[in-house]
């Protein structure tokens, strides 16, 4: 294979003029999120300012006009952003993103700025539970901050003032840059999350001020892009250079990537270790400690739009603790596994389609899937118990383990395969029900642990470390 060292190639282009012309500026989208269908409609007026810029405004809202680039280059990173926003981005109100990880927030902020340069100022909301401030470990810091404020204002500050200053200090240490930040507000509430003393429920929400009228426009761009990938065809205004579902200019040389430092992890004793591997003509077999856990990976992986969107959605909806994804190379992280949680057939479809662009054998990859039911839907589950004449019993001391009543386990599978038709192909991997969290019944897919290191290495590198991945890229044309 001929290696060509260069940046990741762009995958397409979004022409906003064509996109808007195709719908006469009238955008209608149906968002399916957490079991709810939200219809959004908005009419826009637009005109070309010059060859590179477009002026766009909601119909009749002259004051809200913005000027943005008329063409958006579609890079792997932009698609990862689209996936992230599809999962965790605001779907109502202003354009915004909730996430307590600053790397991800910065990534999203950069991407929004790329599409809407200098169009909106940012507002940062920091949320925390008042229970956190009951932690013994931070009392010393709170006292120090209290003394500082007392000196500044000449009187004793309120408890809330001290707590807010604590969060502000912590936030400023993060070095968080999200374009032009106009305001940082802090909300400390007993209603925010945790009920346990000292437990954090930290969340950063970055929103773009006065962007509410442009949220449907952004969501429309994202939705059209994802649909065109899934349908494997060009949409008006969405131009792909190759088939977005399966083709790409860049390929990853898997064998070399696996041998490199990028695919190493730390053992509990602090030693760096990688995969053991066997290679044949079509694939690479990898395993960690025992060949019994081996997973087959394709010899070359195409950096397709589908793969990039999936990685973006995984950042939002993957069940792996975000922090671990940034630290697994530097310290020993236990229980690192691929897990995907979704209440939308389309996301599940995308996940399965894309993950098998990396891995070969479902049996080696998928461990099981289950139905998770949150507290808000215990009432419906109780009613189901009444219909079937069986008790709805929970599992584990806290009630979030494997739910009891085999009848409920069976019925939940039938519901899941009806509601999410993609899961019919995976019916034999169904395992159980769990009563956990607060939200809508959803599918939780769990993968075998061997695959995790490779998957996360590639995901993190494509998202944040393009430099590190260049040496392992080859031109796909040379592969063919």
């Amino acid at each position, binding site marked *: 294979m001929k290696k060509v060292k260069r940046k990741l190639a762009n995958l397409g282009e979004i022409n906003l003029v064509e996109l808007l012309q195709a719908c006469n500026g009238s955008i209608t989208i149906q968002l399916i999120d957490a079991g709810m269908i939200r219809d959004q409609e908005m009419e826009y007026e637009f005109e070309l300012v010059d060859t590179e810029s477009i002026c766009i405004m909601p119909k009749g809202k002259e004051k809200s006009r913005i000027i943005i680039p008329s063409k958006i280059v579609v890079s792997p990173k932009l698609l990862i952003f689209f996936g992230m926003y599809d999962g965790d981005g605001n779907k109502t109100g202003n354009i915004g993103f909730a996430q307590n990880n600053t790397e991800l927030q910065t990534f999203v902020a950069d991407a929004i700025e790329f599409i809407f340069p200098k169009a909106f100022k940012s507002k940062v909301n920091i949320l925390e539970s008042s229970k956190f401030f009951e932690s013994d470990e931070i009392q010393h810091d709170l006292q120090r901050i209290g003394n500082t404020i007392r000196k500044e204002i000449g009187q004793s500050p309120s408890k809330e003032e001290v707590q807010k200053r604590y969060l502000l200090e912590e936030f400023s240490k993060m070095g968080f840059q999200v374009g032009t930040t106009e305001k940082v507000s802090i909300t400390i509430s007993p209603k925010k999350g945790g009920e346990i003393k000292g437990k954090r429920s930290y969340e950063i929400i970055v929103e773009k001020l006065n962007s509410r009228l442009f949220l449907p426009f952004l969501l429309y761009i994202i939705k059209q892009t994802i649909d065109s990938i899934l349908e494997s065809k060009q949409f008006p205004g969405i131009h792909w250079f190759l088939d977005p579902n399966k083709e790409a200019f860049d390929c990853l040389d898997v064998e070399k990537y696996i041998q490199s430092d990028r695919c190493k992890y730390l053992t509990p004793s602090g030693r760096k270790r990688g995969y053991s591997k066997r290679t044949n003509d079509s694939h690479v077999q990898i395993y960690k400690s025992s060949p019994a856990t081996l997973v087959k990976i394709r010899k070359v992986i195409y950096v397709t739009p589908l793969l990039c969107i999936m990685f973006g959605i995984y950042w939002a909806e993957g069940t792996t603790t975000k922090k671990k994804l940034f630290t697994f190379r530097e310290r020993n992280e236990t229980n690192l596994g691929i897990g995907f949680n979704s209440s939308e057939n389309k996301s599940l479809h995308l996940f399965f389609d894309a993950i098998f662009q990396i891995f070969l054998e479902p049996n080696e990859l998928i461990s099981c899937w289950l139905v998770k039911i949150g*507290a*808000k839907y215990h*009432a419906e589950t109780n009613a189901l118990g*009444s219909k079937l*004449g069986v008790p709805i019993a929970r*599992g584990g001391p806290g009630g979030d383990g494997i739910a009891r009543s*085999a009848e409920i386990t069976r019925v939940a599978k039938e519901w899941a395969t009806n509601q999410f038709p993609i899961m019919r192909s995976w019916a034999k991997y169904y395992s159980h029900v769990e009563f956990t969290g607060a939200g809508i019944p959803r599918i939780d897919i769990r993968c075998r642990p061997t695959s995790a290191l490779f998957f996360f290495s590639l995901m993190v590198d494509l998202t944040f470390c393009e430099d590190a991945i260049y040496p392992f890229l080859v031109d796909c044309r040379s592969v063919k």
Partner: protein
Amino acid sequence: MTFTSASEFISWHYLIETPLRLSKYNQRSLTDFFYRPISYLHDEKTRSNVFISDVFHSLVGLYILNATILDADKNNIDYLIKGCWTSKGFTPIRRDSPYAKILNRKLLLEDVYSTYYCLGILILMGRDIGPYSEGILGNFKSWFQSTGWIYNADWTETIIERRLDIELIQQALMGLKLGLLLGTEHRDLPYDEQRLSNLLGYIEKPRYMTSLYHAVLCLKLMQQWDKSKEKYNDVIASYVISHFEENEKGFREYQFGDVKIFNYRGMEDGAKGATAKHRFQSDYITSSINATTYSLWLGIEGVRNKLLDFLKLKGKLIVQFFDDQKCVDGGYGTPIKIAKYTATFGPDVTSIETCNHIMGSSLASIL
């Protein structure tokens, strides 16, 4: 406790004195519907995946219809029951079935409800429960928890505060019935006082119609109902009446305000107002066959007085409610919807709801 006929057992199971009326039903189609789970036992491919609970409710339906159960069917049911026997109780499905293989081993421990259903099936079929009694009795009292609730703690280890109402009260009911079937007086069952206190506590502040109905059934079996009903008449009446929906002509299983407000991310116990409302604005509930039947039972066989007056006032509407229910594949049911999901949560029609339709419309007809 002994029964001379299946119908005697059914009257005891439902604790109903009102005669059941079948004239308005297409009995052939009802029979076919109830017979379906039993027919699955004919086929080698499907017989292993039949659940005890399905067979119990189907048999109850068939015996209500006075249908004849063939010996071949009884033998198939015996085969099912034997496969669920663990030497201490029964599991919900044959332990050697292909479906059982995917289940967590804890789901295949003997539990209160499957054990009750199995004994119920044996009684309905006129079989002797003797061969199983000794094994169950040897283990049975360990299911009686010092809190007063009844469950197999090996089957589910969740702390009481995190258990759902329907589980605790339904298993208390089935545990009590099981005790009586095995010939134990309720007073001789462990922690009788705590159980009484738990049940009265629930009746004072009920959250689900089914659980309220089950709690009152428990008190009747414990022979405590006559002593308690004066005190709880009003609270039960006002709970049931508040669940009537004039437009739907029936009663609802629960109210959002009672069951969908949590101390979780802004959901506080008893909190009212926009935030709490927002949490269930996309959810659905409608009057159900079960809730309407149980409301009628509570008014006619239970508290009477104020509630019975209300039921009489709404009698025509309630009769209409049952008449309006669609018969699907011979059965009846109230589909459960979750938010805007298109697939219904669980089967649309079930044997238990179909039996309740018969019971509910019979009760409504005497209003």
